[in-house]
């Protein structure tokens, strides 16, 4: 008995993690999220896409907040989220709804850190979404032109490799 290896790979995607599991539960997540989101949307003058962008920005800033360097929204990362999500998740509406549901629950948390902790550890129901969200935010932030050139140090053509250099001669972590 033999299997098509490519189909098998699709069924057992090693790198895909549990996104698919998250997607399988999307009707449930969607309906739960809409319960808390619809009143918010109704009060808002924003279009749904602007609202979704806003929600994503709030969540992104929990992962990458403003410190002595800008937050995720400080470099407008949330404005580019849609292309990334569309490339990774088949049902963007379900994703947006899940984000809206999370944002709606944020004011109920004692603190932002408690909220993110709960989100990261699955207490808000969908740890897979946190994993996806963190990967997206961190990846887009630290591979952005701003972070690569202003926060980190990028050398497109380094020249001969040097194995020992005092850090204080650069004072910034290399971008890779």
């Amino acid at each position, binding site marked *: 008995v033999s299997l*098509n290896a490519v189909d098998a790979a699709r069924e057992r995607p090693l790198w895909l993690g549990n996104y698919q599991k998250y997607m399988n539960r999307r009707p449930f997540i969607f309906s739960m999220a809409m319960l808390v989101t619809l009143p918010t949307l109704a009060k808002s003058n924003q279009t749904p896409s602007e609202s979704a962008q806003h929600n994503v920005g709030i969540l992104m800033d929990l992962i990458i907040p403003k*410190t002595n360097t800008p937050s995720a929204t400080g470099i407008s990362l949330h404005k580019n989220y849609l292309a990334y999500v569309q490339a990774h998740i088949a049902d963007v509406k379900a994703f947006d709804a899940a984000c809206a549901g999370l944002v709606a629950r944020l004011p109920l948390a004692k603190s932002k850190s408690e909220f993110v902790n709960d989100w990261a550890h699955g207490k808000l129901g969908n740890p897979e979404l946190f994993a996806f969200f963190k990967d997206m935010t961190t990846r887009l932030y630290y591979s952005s032109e701003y972070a690569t050139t202003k926060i980190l140090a990028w050398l497109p053509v380094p020249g001969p*490799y040097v*194995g020992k250099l005092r850090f204080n001669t650069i004072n910034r972590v290399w971008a890779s």
Partner: protein
Amino acid sequence: MSSDKIYDVIIVGSGMTGGIASKILTELNLNVLMIERGRKIEHKKDYKTENIAVWDIPFGNSKKTLEIQEQQPVQSRSYAFDQTTKHFFINDKENPYKTVEGKPFDWLRGDHLGGKSVTWHRQSYRLSPYDIDAIKTDENGIEWPVKYADLEPWYDMIEEYIGVSGSLENLKQLPDGKFLKPFELNVAELALKKKFESQYSDRKLIIGRTAHLTAPRKHHEELGRMPCQSRNECQRGCSFGAYYSSLNSSIPEALQTGHLEIITDRAVRQVLYSDETKLATGVEVYNRKTGEVEHYRARAILMCASTIGTTQILLNSRSKRFPNGIGNDSGVLGHYLMDHTLGAGATGVLKGYSEFTDKGRRPCPSYIPRFQNLDSRTHPQFERGYAMILEAFKETWKRHTDGPSYGPKLKHTIESNGDWHIFMQGFGEMLPRYKNHISLDFADLDACGMPKVVFDCAYSDNEKAMQDSMQKEAAEMLMRAGCTDIVKYNDHAPPGRCIHEMGTARMGLDPATSFLNGNNQSHAVSNLFVTDGSCMPSSASQNPSLTYMALTARASFFIKKYLTEAA
């Protein structure tokens, strides 16, 4: 478009071995036709992602997109696959294969001129007498018909030609070669080297031997090749020509002779055989652009289509004389498939050197040559042995895209200077076993009309014991060197993931148990030769491409002699 011309040699494949063969055979004044399954690409011109800025790489270079999941689910498992290199990997959907249930195999392939010489990891190590003569101390496999002394001058030739950087170490298990100056070990590796070598009399930490130009010689410069610029983006292609590929060296040189013709987008389906002459007469080819079947003739056929590709063609080359594949009197064709084990070792943190960093992205790891079961059985839980690579690096954001961390702490970790992180991973020898094999499903053809390959291959208890040892030894070495936060790991990667697949048309002394003789010549069809990884009787633990190229160079001179005598 077929041709009535009779070439001296048809080379099937244009990668690591096809390139070397084309250079040598044409320089020996033989007329050569090279047939490549994939598309034509050119050095420099077709490295379309080479100079892309980090921030212009789609989706932050994520490999998890729906498109990749749909089109390249197997290929994306390669360490070298990402948004900037995916065009140098095959489309899985268009090139399906099969595996026996419960035995996954990752078949990682390119589909372009130059083959995997464009995307290889460039690590270049000689086999040693311990590897080639291993059959003298155990009963795994068969005796190699070629000894280290036979290979040594060809190793010399290939190392000088392609340019291999490395250090002279005088190790019996990893013979020195004709090296360009080595890359530097970094400050953390130097510290670990001192600690390892003071604690273990049997272990050395050396710089990886890699096919990059650190100090180009005249013949490299004449090809337009320049020193490595430490970008470590090699699999996108390198316009500096700093690492060897058949695209930047051997194929251009062969073309300069005027004796090489290349046709691309053509899948060789079978080697044709004449009952009358008892020789191979040419090849049947499927033109992937026109859909036509073409025929090309030659006095000798040299198979360099990669381990699985070559054996797929040979098994499909059936005739009345050879109903089970051309030259397959022994029945071993397709059997004794091997790959190195990958994905087991340990990681740790080396404190005390945080005030130092390095500059550049060195394109090679450091290396701990095999230290087990050499002159005596030091590791009784398994036979043969493994080498380890070691990487020492400052953390980057890429290590923090998962896990529960977030907020200011996450940013601080990524943006601040930190300690050196150490990654150790073993590469273990896979023993040759008859039951690990490929076969063809003649009832299920691919788009080129080729029967699909069916893999039936798995690691044995010996390889699993080796992986246990890799974790234990790596963790112990890191602990003794004073590292902290030590974590053992085993990814349980299936065969194929290491992209060192070999065997399936092995060399040997006895025609009853092997497919090829010591000149990489078919025992049964004297003008049929195989020099890619399928010829290997055993796998050793070293990265194998250098050995494939040395065997190809040696066989190419033999082919010239054979054709001269046959004329």
